[in-house]
């Protein structure tokens, strides 16, 4: 779906934001793109949509370079940016003037989602709060039915009930033909939604694994005395929760926040464990 190869990017008079980043996103998945503030999550998303041009390397959607911003490419991608401004028109007008550019746009789906978000199509966008505007854009993005849907901090500005509503809507929106990439630094918001984790750190991809592999080889929880040897990372502030090699333990739900902290502090160790275990199992 989208192939990123050895991308290097920096803003003028600034340090390198992305250095030799290579990633491959495939359809049928919801990717969680995590990283600390300023690690290049938004920059990567902008490169993926052709809004920024890489200094080296390339980014292709269905074999089209994104920086060319060709119609074919843009019809297959929609981005929900972190900060945005929508025109002060009715929701129905916004849909009418913008939907014509997306061949797979579903008006019914859009109106259904607007209703689900407790909004009315006759409401003027200028009268809505930031969170409500975000809901309009999320609904529009889903209804475009582009194969690639990128969301940059989509839960920012959403209240607590809206966050769970967002997760529910996103989960029902994904199908085998779509690829969704959600960037956030609030990892808890994507709990039980994503099925692949990508973590950016130090201008590079530190971690890139499907959730199934993570839960197969890593164990999250409070360790016993016998488990001390296999602890990879532990946090005293979370009641002694730790990440350890799963071995004979029962499978646990992946604690994204704990995983993120573990990867940031022990990236090589975690990657080596997953790689070796996967390799050993294959052999």
């Amino acid at each position, binding site marked *: 779906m989208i192939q990123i190869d050895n991308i290097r990017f920096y803003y003028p008079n600034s340090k390198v934001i992305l250095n030799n980043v290579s990633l491959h996103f495939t359809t049928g998945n919801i990717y969680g793109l995590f990283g600390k503030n300023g690690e290049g999550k938004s920059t990567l998303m902008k490169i993926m949509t052709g809004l*920024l041009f890489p200094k080296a390397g390339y980014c292709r959607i269905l074999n089209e370079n994104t920086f060319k*911003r060709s119609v074919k490419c843009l019809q297959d991608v929609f981005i929900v940016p972190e900060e945005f401004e929508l*025109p*002060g028109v009715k929701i129905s007008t916004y849909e009418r003037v913008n939907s*014509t550019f997306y061949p797979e746009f579903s008006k019914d789906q859009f109106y259904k989602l607007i209703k689900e978000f407790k909004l009315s199509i006759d409401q003027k966008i200028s009268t809505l709060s930031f969170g409500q505007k975000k809901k309009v*854009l999320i609904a529009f993005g889903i209804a475009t039915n582009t194969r690639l849907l990128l969301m940059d901090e989509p839960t920012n500005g959403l209240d607590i009930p809206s966050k769970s509503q967002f997760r529910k809507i996103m989960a029902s929106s994904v199908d085998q033909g779509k690829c969704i990439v959600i960037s956030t630094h609030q990892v808890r918001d994507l709990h039980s939604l994503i099925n692949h984790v990508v973590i950016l750190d130090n201008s590079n991809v530190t971690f890139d694994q499907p959730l199934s592999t993570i839960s197969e080889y890593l164990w999250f929880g409070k360790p016993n005395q016998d488990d001390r040897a296999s602890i990879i990372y532990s946090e005293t502030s979370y009641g002694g929760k730790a990440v350890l090699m799963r071995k004979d333990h029962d499978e646990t739900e992946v604690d994204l926040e704990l995983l993120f902290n573990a990867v940031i502090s022990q990236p090589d160790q975690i990657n080596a464990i997953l790689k070796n275990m996967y390799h050993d199992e294959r052999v």
Partner: protein
Amino acid sequence: MKEYNIRRIGNFIYRDVILLRGTITTALSVVSVLLFIVILFSLRKDHVVVPGEFMSVFNKLYIISGVLFIFSVLKETNTKASNHLYLTLPVSSYERITAIWFTTGILYTIVFSFLCFLVGQFAISVGSIFSETNFHPLPIFSEDYWQLIKFYFFIQPIFLYGAIRFNKNRMGKTLLSLLLIVLGLIFFNMMLYGMLNYGYDVFSGEELASEAFGLASKDFSGIEKVLFVGVFMSTMLLATYFKIVEKEV
């Protein structure tokens, strides 16, 4: 996949007009009221609107509104909060430049001229009811009108370029650049004129030399003028196109 689709251009023009309809309505209302008042005032003197009177107000309103309209249409390109969605809209750069040029040039001229004609005619009708004015058609399509249209289409690409090129203080920077270009051209022409005619002592201040200077400024053949305007407009439009292609957020 076609990168140039007339239907998409139409949809893009429609989008621009609909999203800016509030601004357009307000601007046109202000223009209508101003024009109506000015025409009524001009009727008080001799009960007739002559082309010169109409054009003296029309040209100012037309150029100022046109420039403001260009910057309004391209506002989305440079506004940090809206350019993400604008630039990722599935419309090619060829289609964008065509739509923007058409909207701010042809569509704007037709709508603005038609509105001014209606307002002017309405003012004459009102004048004929309340004064000794005889009802007469508004003399809009004079030679000055066509000259003005040509001038607008000449400067339009410059403002299109400026509206995309500059991120902040776009209008001021464009006007400043335009002034510098004009000053540079004047200086270049003067220098060239002086160098080529140095032997004739053209800068002596004598009457004959001044007359020669005046004649030289008129000695600009029609073909060269067309070529200069054509090349300049095309270059500026091409530069605008490349600015759209290279635009990053």
